C-alpha cells in the first residue's frame, strides 16, 4: 500500500506539470513583477530597463490614500460583490425551483435560453446591456455609490443568473425522489418540500457556488477597472500596481472572512461528521 502511494505521488505531479509551468509564466512571474514595480517609479512609456526604474520605497502605497477615488471605488466593489451575489443566488434558486415544477416538455428549451447570456456574452451584447441597465437605474451625476453598485450588480447578474439556475436545477433533480414522495404523502406542500428537504440538500452546493460566483464577480467588477484606467492613461505603473495590490488585498480579506463564516455556519455539522469518519477528508 505504501508503495502504491509513492507512485501515486509522482504521477500526480506529472499530471500537474502543464499547470505548474503555466502558473509560473502566466501568474507568478507577472504578479511578482507587478509587486516589484509597486515599490518603484516606472512610466509605461519608457522601456522596462534599469535607468528608467527608480526605487521609491513605500511612497506609492502612501500616495493612494490621498487618491480621492480609492475608498469610493473600494466601497463600490464590496457593495457590488454583496449585491450581485445576493441577487444571483436568490434568483437562481427561485428560477431553478420554478423550472423544475413547470411543464416537463419546455424545461430543456427554457434552460437553454437561460444560459445564453452566460455562454454568448460578447462585447456587442454585453456592453449594450450593461450600459442600458446603468441608464435605467442610475443617474451618474446625482446618485451615490450605493445606487451605482446596485445598478451594476443588476446588469452584470443578468449574465450569470442562468448558469447558476442550471446548476441548482440539476442539484434539485438529484434530490432522491422517494423522500419527496414520502413527504408529499404526508401532506407537505411544494413550499414545504422546498424549504425542508431540497434546500438542506442544496446547502453544500450553495456554498461551493458562492465561492464560484464571488470569483466570477471579482473578475467583472467595474469599479476596479475604472480606477485602474486612470493610472494607465497617466502611465504611472508604480502607482497603478500599488493601488491594485492594496485593493486586491482588502477585497480578498473581505471575501475570505465571508467564506470562513459561511463554511463554519453552514457546514459545521458536515465537518464534524467528516472528522469522525476520515480525518484527511477535505472539502
Amino acid at each position, binding site marked *: 500500500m505504501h508503495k502504491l502511494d509513492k507512485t501515486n505521488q509522482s504521477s500526480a505531479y506529472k499530471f500537474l506539470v502543464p499547470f505548474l509551468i503555466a502558473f509560473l509564466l502566466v501568474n507568478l512571474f507577472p504578479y511578482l513583477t507587478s509587486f516589484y514595480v509597486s515599490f518603484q517609479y516606472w512610466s509605461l512609456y519608457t522601456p522596462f530597463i534599469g535607468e528608467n526604474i527608480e526605487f521609491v520605497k513605500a511612497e506609492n502605497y502612501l500616495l493612494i490614500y490621498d487618491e480621492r477615488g480609492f475608498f469610493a471605488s473600494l466601497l463600490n466593489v464590496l457593495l457590488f460583490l454583496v449585491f450581485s451575489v445576493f441577487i444571483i443566488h436568490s434568483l437562481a434558486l427561485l428560477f431553478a425551483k420554478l423550472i423544475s415544477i413547470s411543464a416537463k416538455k*419546455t424545461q430543456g428549451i427554457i434552460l437553454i435560453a437561460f444560459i445564453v447570456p452566460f455562454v454568448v*456574452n460578447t462585447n456587442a451584447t454585453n456592453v449594450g446591456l450593461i450600459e442600458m441597465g446603468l441608464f435605467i437605474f442610475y443617474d451618474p451625476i446625482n446618485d451615490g455609490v450605493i445606487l451605482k453598485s446596485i445598478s451594476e450588480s443588476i446588469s452584470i447578474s443578468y449574465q450569470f443568473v442562468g448558469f447558476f439556475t442550471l446548476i441548482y436545477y440539476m442539484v434539485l433533480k438529484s434530490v432522491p425522489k422517494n423522500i419527496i414522495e414520502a413527504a408529499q404523502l404526508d401532506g407537505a406542500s411544494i413550499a414545504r418540500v422546498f424549504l425542508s428537504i431540497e434546500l438542506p440538500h442544496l446547502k453544500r452546493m450553495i456554498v461551493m457556488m458562492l465561492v464560484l460566483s464571488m470569483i466570477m464577480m471579482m473578475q467583472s467588477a467595474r469599479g476596479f477597472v475604472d480606477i485602474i484606467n486612470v493610472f494607465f492613461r497617466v502611465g504611472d505603473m508604480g502607482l497603478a500596481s500599488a493601488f491594485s495590490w492594496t485593493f486586491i488585498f482588502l477585497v480578498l480579506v473581505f471575501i475570505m472572512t465571508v467564506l470562513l463564516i459561511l463554511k463554519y455556519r453552514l457546514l459545521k455539522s458536515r465537518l464534524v461528521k467528516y472528522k469522525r469518519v476520515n480525518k484527511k477528508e*477535505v472539502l
Partner: protein
Amino acid sequence: MNIFDNALFQKSIYAFLKYGVLAFLILFAMTTIFPFVYSIVLSTHDQEGISSLGVSMGLGIDLVENYNELLQRTAFWTGITNSAIIAILGTVISIFFCSMCGYSLAVYKFKGRNVIFGIMLLSMMIPPVLSLIPYFLIVDMLGLMNTHFAVWVPFTIAPMGIFLVRQYVVASIPKDLLEAAKLDGAGEFRIYSTIVMPLLKPSLATLAIIQFVFLWNNFLQPLVILEGDKAVIITMIRSMQGTPDAPMGAIILGSFLSMLPLILVFVVSSKQMISGLTSGAVK
C-alpha cells in the same frame, strides 16, 4: 391546519404554476434572445434608420450596403479566420491540460495538493488587468509579439476549467473503477486516457464551450499584442467603433456575424452541455 397543506389551495396553486410560471419563465427567456434578434433588425438599416428606429422591429433594406461597407472598412474574413485559429487551438489544448490537472487534483493525495488548489482559487480572483503589463513584457522578451501563439497559450490552463473537471471527477467517477484498472495493470497515464477521459466527456463539452467562447471574446490580450492582418475580429470591430463617422449599421452587422460562430457552437452543443451537467455532476 396550515394553509399550505389545504387540498384546494394546492390545486389552485398547481393551476397557477402551470401557466403563470411558464409565462414568466418564457418572458425571462425571451430577454436573453432579444439582443440577437434586435441586432439582426438593426443591421438591415442605414445610419439614419438606426437612430430613428427606436424599439420597432421593422426590417430595413440596407443589409447588402452595410456588408459592403463592413468589408471596405475592415479585413473582416481575415479577422474571423484569426479568431477561429486562436479559439480552436486554445480550446483543444486546454481540454487536454485542464482535464489532466483536474483529474490529478481530484484523485491523488499528494503533498501540496491543498496548497495548489488554494493558489489556483486565489489566482482566479485576481483581476486580469493586473497582469497585463507583465504579460506584455514577457511576450516581448520571448520575441512572440504579433503571433497567435502568445494569445492562446496562456489560457490553455484555465483555473475555472480545472475546477470544473475536478468537481466532476470527485462527484461522478467511482474510485473502484480506477482501482480495478490499476489491479489489471494499467499505468497511470493509461487509466487517465482510456478510462477517465471518455467518462469526462460531458464536463469536457462544457469546458470546451466555455473556453471557446472565452478565447473568441478575449479582448485585452489580442488588443495589446496583435496588429495588422493578425488582429482578431473583436478588436477590429472595436476599432471601427472608435472612428468619428462610425457606420453603425456595418458595426452591428459585423458584431452579429462575429457572434454567429458562438451561437452555432452553442446551438449544436447545448443539449450535450445540459445533459452532461445534469447526468451526474452532483453527488
